[in-house]
């Protein structure tokens, strides 16, 4: 069974949990005391991921680290439908995976600063986060104009959406207002209506109707 080193308040762990559940994979969650224990910097965990970062998984005796890499790994290994990681759109998928990493470096950093007192330049992190939100909002505006609901021009979400969703949905926890980003807000709402979507703390938990009358 896949072992998943997990912290429920991590947006990067959310991505992995979401895909594991969408793919119907059995997994064992190993809880890591990220805060206040900083267990991800402990020798035990550094053996699994020398970078001291969550998430990491162990599958078939091998460790895979980095949220985006795990999404690629799981989709490539277990998604028979090929929908989550479409082979003929690999360039675009990787582009958004890299973008997701920048969201971690900005919005997630601001959130860790505000809630858990990480020492960093929070105004720089917020400015960078807002710049990224403008870029993805514009992309989604044109996508919607062309009749597409997701980051890729496909009738279903992909790991690109999974990778970008959590830190955008958690932006207000880092003091970034999402109200100006209309297309992003609509995309987020579509994502949260996906079957079996479970919000993590910090994402609006209100149940939304599955169909708009």
């Amino acid at each position, binding site marked *: 069974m896949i072992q998943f080193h997990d*912290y429920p308040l991590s947006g990067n762990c959310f991505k992995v949990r979401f895909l594991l559940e969408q793919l119907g994979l059995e997994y064992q969650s190993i809880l890591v*005391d990220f805060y*206040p224990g900083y267990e991800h910097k402990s020798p035990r965990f550094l053996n699994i991921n020398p970078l001291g970062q969550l998430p990491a998984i162990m599958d078939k005796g091998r460790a895979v680290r980095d949220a985006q890499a795990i999404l690629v790994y799981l989709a490539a290994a277990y998604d028979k439908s090929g929908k989550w990681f479409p082979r003929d759109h690999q360039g675009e998928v990787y582009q958004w995976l890299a973008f997701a990493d920048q969201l971690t470096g900005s919005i997630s950093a601001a959130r860790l600063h*505000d809630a858990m*007192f990480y020492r960093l330049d929070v105004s720089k992190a917020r400015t960078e986060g807002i710049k990224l939100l403008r870029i993805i909002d514009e992309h989604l505006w044109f996508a919607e104009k062309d009749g597409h609901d997701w980051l890729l021009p496909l009738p279903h979400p992909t790991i690109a959406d999974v990778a970008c969703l959590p830190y955008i949905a958690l932006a207000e926890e880092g003091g970034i207002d999402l109200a100006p980003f209309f297309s992003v807000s609509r995309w987020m709402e579509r994502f949260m209506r996906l079957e079996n979507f479970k919000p993590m*703390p910090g994402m*609006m938990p209100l149940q939304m109707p599955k169909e708009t009358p």
Partner: protein
Amino acid sequence: MTPDTFTRSQWYAIGRLPDFEGAEAKPVRLLSQDLTVSDAAGVLSVNDADGRSLLTQIRYGHLWTTLSDTPRPLYDVPEFDEPDRRLVTAGGVGVRCSGLRCVENFLDMAHFPFVHTDILGVEEHPSVESYDVSMDAEKDEIWATKCKFFQPMASAAASGGQMTEYKYRVPHPYSTILYKTCPIREDVWDLVGLFIQPVEEDECIVHSFILVFDEENTDTGLLHFQQNIFLQDRMILENQVPRKLPLDPRWELPTRADASSIAYRRWLKANELQWGVALFNEAA
């Protein structure tokens, strides 16, 4: 605004002991003042910006300090001395609102089904039954008792839905403790509480703890249960307007379910607490 006498005369938790291991003038903010904490061979000291040494004590897994030279005594929680109980301290979490708002949110059961969906409440059981609120005049603290709520997963040790009985205690303007039915032992209560560090009038750090009988969960499991719940609250707290607590009855209308919050607001007013309070006239 400088803190009123009631606010200033209290002890405040400013962190867990491991947070200050080897600290050299580690900055801490309390009641709009910059303080530093230092660790000299295991002895923790707190100084204000003028270098004045403040009173300290170590209790309930946290370091406490006060700006007052003659503080009110810190309230007793005898359960901390009971054997077999497990204490998990969840670490401080920053919240952009008055700490008074956090106490009030903690006292509120009506939000369980909507904010802590499928954990502390379900939408099919939204009603708050009548409960009792009383003042303990001798200790000058508020108790809400006979609170009952249907909870699908009342604690990390719960194995299914149960009617959970609660008691709430407010012994301090910035502390509140919940006593709830222990799912695995009869005739004892599990404790969950908040020690709030007011940073500014509309900003605080919430130090939370759980003190429970639990033979099944790891410390990390208990910690994550508590953090999940509190981070769900944080989002709601940061969206409350105004960020300070309104005490003027013209501003927010309470219902019967808010009896404990009404008592809390009255108690703050009776003690002439002003720091962290939103003024009706300023809003108008």
